[in-house]
């Protein structure tokens, strides 16, 4: 036995309260295999007993794009800054839905996993993290679809100008992930005792899409509205994504830096709140 025989050598101490910033990140690292297995579980169980399998990942963005093209493009005639309408909408949908999925799925993580959390200990953060990674796979598949469509329009000779800002993609993805995760963690922590906020998430995320330049370019707005919309941290991210791949609109450094700062702050708040609630949520959920 390698166990220390002195009374001081405790491996674990269970106490009522912990310091706010003790996030047990080492524990999370020790459970990294669980994270991978959970991602695998989500992926495999998604298409088990379906005929089309992973093809289902394509269906949602394709149909949404068709509907958006018809409603916003043909009926409302909202400008896309010269980019082909389907491509413009798909860029918005694919990136927005990654954020939206991260947020909505993590915002119910305590409720959805109450039974398993009530029976076994593992770092609770593993669960929301696995959601973020699972969604990354889904995003990857949909992103390929987007690239295919982009290549098609390039070959057709449309005016699409991908530029160096494409290289910001990993940063954008990371920021969307931590922003969605951070907000989701805050919401799930607040809803363990009072469920009210959970009702807001469902339609809130729908409305938030219209407060983000997903179906319209930021430049389409009047100056006074543009500032309000830019307060939404997702704004800078989506705009940069579209600018990098399509060359429409422009890069707003201020909005982008604001997005970085806001995302990081929200993420840290989310972690701390989640960490505080996870210790006792089993008693109240």
């Amino acid at each position, binding site marked *: *036995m390698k*166990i*220390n*025989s002195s*009374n001081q*050598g*405790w*491996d*674990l*101490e*269970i*106490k*009522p*309260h912990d310091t706010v910033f003790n996030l047990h990140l080492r524990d999370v690292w020790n*459970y990294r*295999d*669980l994270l*991978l*297995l*959970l991602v*695998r*579980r989500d992926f*495999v*169980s998604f298409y*088990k*007993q379906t005929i089309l399998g992973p093809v289902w990942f394509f269906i949602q963005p394709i149909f949404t794009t068709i509907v958006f093209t018809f409603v916003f493009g043909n009926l409302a005639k909202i400008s896309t800054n010269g980019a082909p309408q389907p491509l413009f909408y798909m860029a918005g949908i694919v990136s927005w839905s990654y954020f939206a999925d991260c947020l909505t799925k993590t915002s119910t993580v305590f409720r959805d996993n109450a*039974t*398993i*959390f*009530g*029976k*076994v*200990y*593992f770092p609770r953060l593993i669960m929301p993290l696995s959601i973020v990674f699972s969604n990354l796979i889904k995003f990857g598949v949909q992103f390929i679809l987007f690239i295919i469509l982009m290549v098609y329009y390039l070959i057709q000779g449309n005016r699409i100008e991908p530029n160096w800002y494409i290289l910001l993609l990993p940063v954008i993805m990371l920021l969307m992930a931590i922003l969605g995760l951070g907000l989701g963690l805050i919401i799930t922590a607040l809803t363990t*005792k*009072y469920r009210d906020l959970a009702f807001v998430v469902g339609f809130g995320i729908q409305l938030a899409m219209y407060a983000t330049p997903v179906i319209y370019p930021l430049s389409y707005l009047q100056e006074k509205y543009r500032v309000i919309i830019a307060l939404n941290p997702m704004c800078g991210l989506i705009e940069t994504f579209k600018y990098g791949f399509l060359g429409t609109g422009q890069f707003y450094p201020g909005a982008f830096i604001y997005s970085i700062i806001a995302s990081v702050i929200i993420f840290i708040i989310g972690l701390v709140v989640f960490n505080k609630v996870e*210790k*006792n949520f*089993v*008693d*109240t959920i």
Partner: protein
Amino acid sequence: MSDIAIKVENLSKAYQLGDFGTGSLGRDIDRWWAKVRGKEDPFLKIGEANDRAIKGTSDIVWSLKDINLEINQGDAIGIIGKNGAGKSTLLKVLSRITSPTQGNIKIKGRIASLLEVGTGFHPELTGRENIYLNGAILGMRKKEISRKFDEIVDFSGIERYIDTPVKRYSSGMYVRLAFAVAAYLESEILIVDEVLAVGDAEFQKKCLGKMNDVSKGEGRTVLFVSHNMAAISNLCQKTSLLKNGSLQAFDYTRAIIDRYIISEKQYEAEVTGTDIKVTRQCSKANFYALRLLSESRGLTTSFAIDEEVIVSFEYDILEDNTMLYPSIHLNDIMGTCILATFNGLSANLNNDLYSKKPLNKGRYRSVCKISANLLNNKTYSINAFLVPTDDADLGIAEDILTFSIEETGAMTKEYTGDWAGLIRPKLDWMTEKLPVEF
């Protein structure tokens, strides 16, 4: 003395009863305000002991209160207590599912808990995939699981179904697979909650055997909660008894189980009339009263080992001309029948004048004396029967009286240790020297 693996100090856990509605927000604000001003939490001041049977005035209860416990490394410890005594809460706090309200626990070594089998099993995944997933949830690394994979499959005995989704498993197969994963956890401390209540007898035996290996063979510390006294006494050297959230006693298992049985059942030396819970009603006669008596002290439920146990049995005959035998079974606390007796002439030391006679309407009393120096120092319970000529019309009252035999030292002049056996009769021993030369 060996090292301490788990040290529990002044551990308490409070729960809020009732609904979390709009009213609880106001209370939360009160608590927060008290905290800001550095005052004691008003929520905890009004807490009371957790007895679910008594309606309390406060909706805060202490599910655990001031528990102090030291568990040595390598011991198998049982935890018993009736429903709501705090057993599961204690395990939950120990396994970090919820945190204590006050006090702390110090633990040496890796801890794995098994509060349920098959936690996190996904019905769509195959047995193989679930072994990995469940193993990882329980804290195993992927490499570790791969190394033990064959053993796990072997132990579960469901090799043929390993690539079938577990939703197609029978519930027995499901449990087998789940327990098998848990059985191969590598942790210094294993916490097990009543998981043996499932699976068939053969598999339960296998699980108990495996847990025995874990504690005795591998020197790991095991904490085991169960209502199954036989399992507890087989597996655990020491046991702690919880009652209403506090630790009543922590001692050798046998002593604790006897104490538990006595304290929880609150024995009566006498039951009469409608207090007698009849399992089966006889059409010709009713139980009227059953009493336990000592020759010298009258009604009692505890007897000295060298004292007669007198069972007085009163019953009402409802029809004239009824032929009927009163009978009793004596059981140990696990429900094993130790002896059966009735007042039949051939089974009686006396000549009972009413035996095998048609009885007329009225109330009768039959008294059975269980000899002194026959029973061991254990707890026993009595089943009473009224057996008419037509066996099918039998009247039964199960577990009607319970008593304990206390050690008095009468038989322990030469040997003072724990005396094995369900009974301890004084028997006829004689020694002689044989005419053999060496």
